[in-house]
């Protein structure tokens, strides 16, 4: 199904109804190019919102505070009310970087450090191991990559499988999201191992989004687009690939 840019834009802005959303999410699950376009819409929106939000924290110039209340002075109906007014005039504009913001930044920095430490230290989280060619999937992640079908997920699994596709060199790759760790990644099966060429922190699937691919960060989507041969596998293709234990045949 084809979606024009206005529809994708409306989806990214949260303007579509549930039925339209479901249609697009199903299409996104099969088409990383579509997912990337939605991500680009969201990224531009976030950039615009972020860039101008600083204005909200700046102190309001005196002349504007005065202009806002000029009518109050001109035709104040009751003097009694005017007297208690100045008390409410003193809005406290939040300082650009108060303790709260610094703590939040420090916390997210620490979280990032902890996250990469947990990912990279072998055996610590049990999901990754450093191998010769990079990270390899282990434990629950390896099990999910090996056997879990995206088409049969409830959305409650700790590891969510997103897109499954074949690469130019004939291997299978699957995208995944670790829900608790807010991490998305790509795994490719090479020599009977699931290698992890890319991971990225991810906000996690948004509420009401069952498709793990909808939560993939743009960096992962770009890698998928670069590696993918043809289209992503549908439910049947995914199941057949699993039956063949991910042994690619030309």
């Amino acid at each position, binding site marked *: 199904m084809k979606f024009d840019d206005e529809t994708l834009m409306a989806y990214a802005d949260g303007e579509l109804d549930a039925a339209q959303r479901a249609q697009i999410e199903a299409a996104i699950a099969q088409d990383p190019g579509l997912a990337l376009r939605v991500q680009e819409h969201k990224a531009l929106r976030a*950039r615009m919102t972020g*860039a101008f*939000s600083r204005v*909200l924290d*700046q102190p309001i110039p005196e*002349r504007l505070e005065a202009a*806002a209340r000029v009518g109050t002075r001109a035709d104040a109906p009751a003097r009694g009310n005017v007297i208690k007014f100045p008390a409410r005039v003193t*809005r406290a504009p939040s300082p650009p970087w108060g303790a709260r913001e610094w703590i939040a930044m420090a916390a997210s920095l620490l979280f990032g450090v902890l996250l990469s430490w947990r990912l990279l230290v072998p055996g610590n989280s049990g999901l990754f191991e450093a191998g010769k060619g990079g990270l390899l999937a282990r434990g629950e992640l390896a099990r999910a990559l090996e056997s879990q079908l995206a088409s049969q997920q409830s959305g409650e699994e700790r590891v969510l499988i997103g897109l499954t596709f074949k690469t130019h060199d004939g291997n299978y790759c699957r995208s995944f999201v670790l829900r608790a760790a807010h991490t998305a990644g790509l795994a490719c099966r090479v020599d009977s191992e699931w290698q992890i060429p890319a991971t990225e922190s991810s906000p996690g699937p948004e509420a009401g989004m069952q498709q793990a691919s909808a939560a993939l960060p743009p960096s992962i989507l770009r890698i998928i687009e670069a590696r993918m041969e043809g289209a992503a596998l549908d439910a049947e293709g995914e199941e057949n690939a699993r039956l063949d234990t991910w042994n690619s045949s030309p």
Partner: protein
Amino acid sequence: MSDTSEEIGERIALLLPRLRRFARSLSRNQHDADDLVQTAVERAWRHLDQLRPGANLASWMFGIMKNAWLDNLRTRRRRGEVALPEDSGDHPAVSPIDTEAGLWAVSEAMNKLPEEQRLAVALVLVEGMSYKEAAGVLEIPMGTLTSRLARGRAALAAELAEEARGDIA
């Protein structure tokens, strides 16, 4: 009118941060933006009788600011001060806050958009209004808003990508 003018004054004052942000997304610097806010607030007081009871004060104020901004551009253009919005004469003032938040690049890119697209982008992407609310402020049908927003977004994305390439070069 149900509200006293104190209450109206207080509600307008509470809208000032958002009005300044909207104005900043339409202007090249904060000084011009604050001039626009002042014009809009003064107009609002002069035309307070046109605010229908129960109407959304924020939407009404944003609409007034939209008109004030367009009037301002037209006047300056008539006087020959500006041929196009992006040629607004003096170099834009760059405050530390502008550079810090990456605001400057985004603001310059916004400035290159046609007015109608800039308004749609400002209300939806910067102010976070729904399409319906933004169409109401701009007094245009939803379909018109959507197409202006889509075109504005595409132009903005192209402009920002262009600029990112320029930074690397």
